[in-house]
């Protein structure tokens, strides 16, 4: 504290420590906010089920209705939403594929009610899709301002794929 540089160093250092302290309190306060949401997800239609080079793929459309506004608090930077299809085949003990994902930044847009959405094809590693049971789940990943990155699973829907190939009328 005897010289200007010494004082500047101590004060800025202390400011940084206090900033880190309030940030830590911000991160810890996440535990007191609700993190439960109700999700309604269900299959709309499977418009295509076919194979190419002995790999089967399907075009799955689904409906999603959920209100994610409670998840937005002062520790939330964004939510990454994704819908996962999970199934088993003879080849694989477990297969998981993302069918749809979405980046949510605004609380105002967090009341979601969409019908007939499709983004990525469901592509197997072999011929394991026909007559298989697929489990759809809705998941979200919280990206905080800082702190732990957490993933949550809410809402699921099961359906069975057709045992014959379905061709899209445009295909």
């Amino acid at each position, binding site marked *: 504290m005897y010289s200007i540089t010494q004082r500047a160093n101590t004060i800025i250092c202390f400011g940084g420590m206090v900033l880190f302290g309030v940030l830590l309190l911000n991160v810890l306060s996440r535990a007191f906010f609700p993190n439960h949401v109700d999700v309604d997800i269900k299959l709309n239609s499977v418009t295509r089920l076919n194979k190419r080079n002995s790999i089967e793929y399907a075009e799955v459309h689904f409906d999603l209705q959920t209100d994610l506004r409670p998840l937005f608090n002062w520790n939330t930077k964004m939510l*990454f939403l*994704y819908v*996962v299809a999970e199934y088993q085949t003879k080849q*694989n003990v*477990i*297969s*998981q594929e993302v069918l749809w*994902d979405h980046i949510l930044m605004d609380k105002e847009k967090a009341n979601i009610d969409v019908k007939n959405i499709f983004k990525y094809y469901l592509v197997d590693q072999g011929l394991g899709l026909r007559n298989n049971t697929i489990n759809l789940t809705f998941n979200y990943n919280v*990206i905080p301002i800082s702190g732990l990155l957490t*993933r949550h699973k809410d809402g699921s829907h099961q359906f069975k794929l057709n045992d014959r190939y379905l061709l899209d009328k445009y295909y």
Partner: protein
Amino acid sequence: MSELIGKLNPFSNIPKYQIAQQIINFGLIVSTALMIWKFLMIASGSESPIVVVLSGSMKPAFERGDLLYLDMNEGPFRVGEIVVFKIEGKEIPIVHRILQIHEKSNGLVDILTKGDNNPVDDRGLYAEGQLWLNRNHIIGRARGYLPYVGMVTIMMHDFPQLKIFLVVVLALFVLSTREQ
């Protein structure tokens, strides 16, 4: 002549024991940093527990210069996790999200990744002919996040001369400061 050298040399009027003390202090700082790093390696199980995001491919979740804490425990990989992986023949590790996994009965797993900000999956980034990532490509899962702290690293990455300059200045500063 020796007087001139004595005047120019910043260490000449510092007693020898103090120079020794500064060198020990400097060594202590370096070894403490190394100890923390090694401890984190053991605690997280990852070979590189703290990484700085170097690209904007995970925008808007992670910007350039953000800091990630990785861990690598035995649990299975799941879709939606953000992982750091290294492709053979490429030096810089990549931070991306898992899009697909296919787990075999013998425990082997095929993984496909995608950056949130990229329009397509990462097959174009992998080595030639490589369709899937395996467990041995992956350095760790992103668990903790702290923004902007890695900005100095980004500056040093963009301007390599800055690194040498900084090290020299810091070393001189630490060695030549006298305790009052």
